């Protein structure tokens, strides 16, 4: 986007002046930053040659539908800016001081998103459900749980308005979003998020959460659609007894690439983290999972686990799981496990000897493989939905 277009865009929007100023600042940064290249570790094995953020066409507002109970505050971001300007000013992009090209793209150009505030001591009864209709327009969402509160948040990413067949190969749709989450003392957030975009889209989702003393965040992630799907999900455990769990599944077919990064930062003593990410690939699909657990020097008594496993259903599918641990403290327990495997003939033979045909036997093994992640989900509805999507993607591959 040209500077003149950008200035015009800012002018046309009735936004608080602090936001206009921020956009200007980050736009300068964005313009100076180069697109990441494959020499950077996090951008190895991912082909973004078709993605040019400097050229992405942006117009209008992202269409988002929301549904929630009356004990919490949920607004579209563009409306929240009037009523909650101060709170947004205080939190927005405060966890992303190290913004890369993508994040500064979002912080310069974001147009809509969801604002969620759960007041102190409110244990929300109903989930907040959000359906985001992805386009080129970057999305920024902010979720704040005040002390001693509780929320189930369900975010679904679709792109109903985009016809995958006519979608442009030279200038593909690039959907980007940043979500910032603040879980304050003794609060608990269950965050469900799925990406069910049509093929030919590129998606880059950045999510960061700050978790304070005695608070807990549980991530439940499902990556299904898009041509290339990048997730970067990071959790900062900032207060003692803070907890994080990340459970994710992905299912890839055709030429899809699923690229998932999770990072957990243990910053103080007595925090815990448990990660299990599993994916199934068929066709020529590929995946990369990078997981980092970082334990700071004073973060003693940390308990942290990370597991990443991929099941390949075809010879052409490829997967790379790269867990890493950075441990500065000496009194901690941190472990990881990862694997990439194919369907085992012995298992298939066993099931087939009981009358199941090969296809059914394969399905049962795949379902079982993912079940050990899905059974951690605290929502039956989301679990069933993820199951159904997975089946569809792998069966109709």
């Amino acid at each position, binding site marked *: 986007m040209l500077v003149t277009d950008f200035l015009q865009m800012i002018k046309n929007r009735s936004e608080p002046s602090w936001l206009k100023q921020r956009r200007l600042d980050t736009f300068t940064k964005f313009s100076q930053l180069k697109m990441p290249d494959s020499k950077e570790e996090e951008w190895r094995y991912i082909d973004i040659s078709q993605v040019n953020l400097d050229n992405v066409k942006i117009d209008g507002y992202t269409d988002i539908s929301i549904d929630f109970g009356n004990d919490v505050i949920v607004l579209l971001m563009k409306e929240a800016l009037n009523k909650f300007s101060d709170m947004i000013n205080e939190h927005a992009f405060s966890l992303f001081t190290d913004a890369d090209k993508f994040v500064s793209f979002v912080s310069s150009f974001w147009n809509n998103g969801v604002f969620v505030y759960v007041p102190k001591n409110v244990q929300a009864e109903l989930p907040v459900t959000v359906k985001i209709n992805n386009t080129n327009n970057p999305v920024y969402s902010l979720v704040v749980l005040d002390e001693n509160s509780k929320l189930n948040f369900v975010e679904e990413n679709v792109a109903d308005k985009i016809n995958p067949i006519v979608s442009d190969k030279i200038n593909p749709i690039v959907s980007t979003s940043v979500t910032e989450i603040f879980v304050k003392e003794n609060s608990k957030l269950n965050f469900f998020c799925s990406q069910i975009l049509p093929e030919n889209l590129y998606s880059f989702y950045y999510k960061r959460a700050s978790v304070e003393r005695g608070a807990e965040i549980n991530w439940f992630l499902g990556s299904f659609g898009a041509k290339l799907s990048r997730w970067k999900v990071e959790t900062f455990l900032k207060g003692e007894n803070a907890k994080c769990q990340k459970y994710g599944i992905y299912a890839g077919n055709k030429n899809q690439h699923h690229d998932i990064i999770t990072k957990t930062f243990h910053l103080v003593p007595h925090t815990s983290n448990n990660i299990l990410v599993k994916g199934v690939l068929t066709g020529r699909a590929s995946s990369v999972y990078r997981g980092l657990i970082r334990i700071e020097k004073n973060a003693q008594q940390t308990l942290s686990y990370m597991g990443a496993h991929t099941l390949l259903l075809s010879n052409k599918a490829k997967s790379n799981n790269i867990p890493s641990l950075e441990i500065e403290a000496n009194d901690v327990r941190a472990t990881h496990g990862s694997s990439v495997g194919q369907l085992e003939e012995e298992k298939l033979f*066993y099931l087939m*000897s009981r009358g199941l045909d090969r296809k059914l036997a394969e399905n*049962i*093994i795949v379902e079982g493989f993912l079940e050990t992640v899905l059974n951690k989900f605290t929502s039956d509805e989301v679990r069933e939905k993820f199951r159904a999507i997975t089946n569809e993607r792998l069966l109709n591959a």
Partner: protein
Amino acid sequence: MELEIKDLHVSIEGKKILNGISLKIKEGELHALMGPNGSGKSTLAYVLMGHPKYKIDSGEIIFHGENIINLTPDKRAKLGLFLGFQYPTEVPGVTFKNFLWTAYKTLNNGASYVDFNEILDEKLELLEIDKSFVLRYLNEGFSGGEKKRSEILQLAVLNPKIAVLDETDSGLDVDSLKIVANGIKKLNENGMGILLITHYQRILNYILPDFVHVMTDGKIVKSGGHDLAKEIEEKGYEGIKDG
């Protein structure tokens, strides 16, 4: 209904394992198959069920009057064949009950879940297995003995015409052995034909086999009545070979 094996020659990766096996098992008959380690007993069991890794060089397996050597394992199961595995595989994430129900309804067209539950309860009782057993993931983390019970429970519920039981008695404690043996006996009395592969005389104390066969080096070198099992126990395989 009978299972007839005719002059079966089998190899794996160019190595000959079975060298002309012939055997006929009728419904309601109990055959014990004994033989030293590595003689080819499990190979025979796998081949009967249709394991893809073995190559059948010659011979026939006749079941239902049809040569089944080109049928996949699921088709053989549908004809009424069952294999109780020496080393059952673990299938994580799949509960025993869901799996068995899937198998049950595949083998019994139009089966009802209510009937299935009734049969399952009945067999759990027969085999003195706790109900919580079927809610666990299939064989995952099962002890050696529990895996064998899992096989027998599947056998009892699926109720095939002919069953090959590969060392189903190994790894069972005395009490479990008695329960499993009685279970097999009952199924046998109700008409199931059984080929029981075993190393031990002790299971044969509970269920008298109609025939005992001895396999060495991929060949059945001797067949006889249940006395043969005792003779093996006393003399060992070397001892009975020439006698």
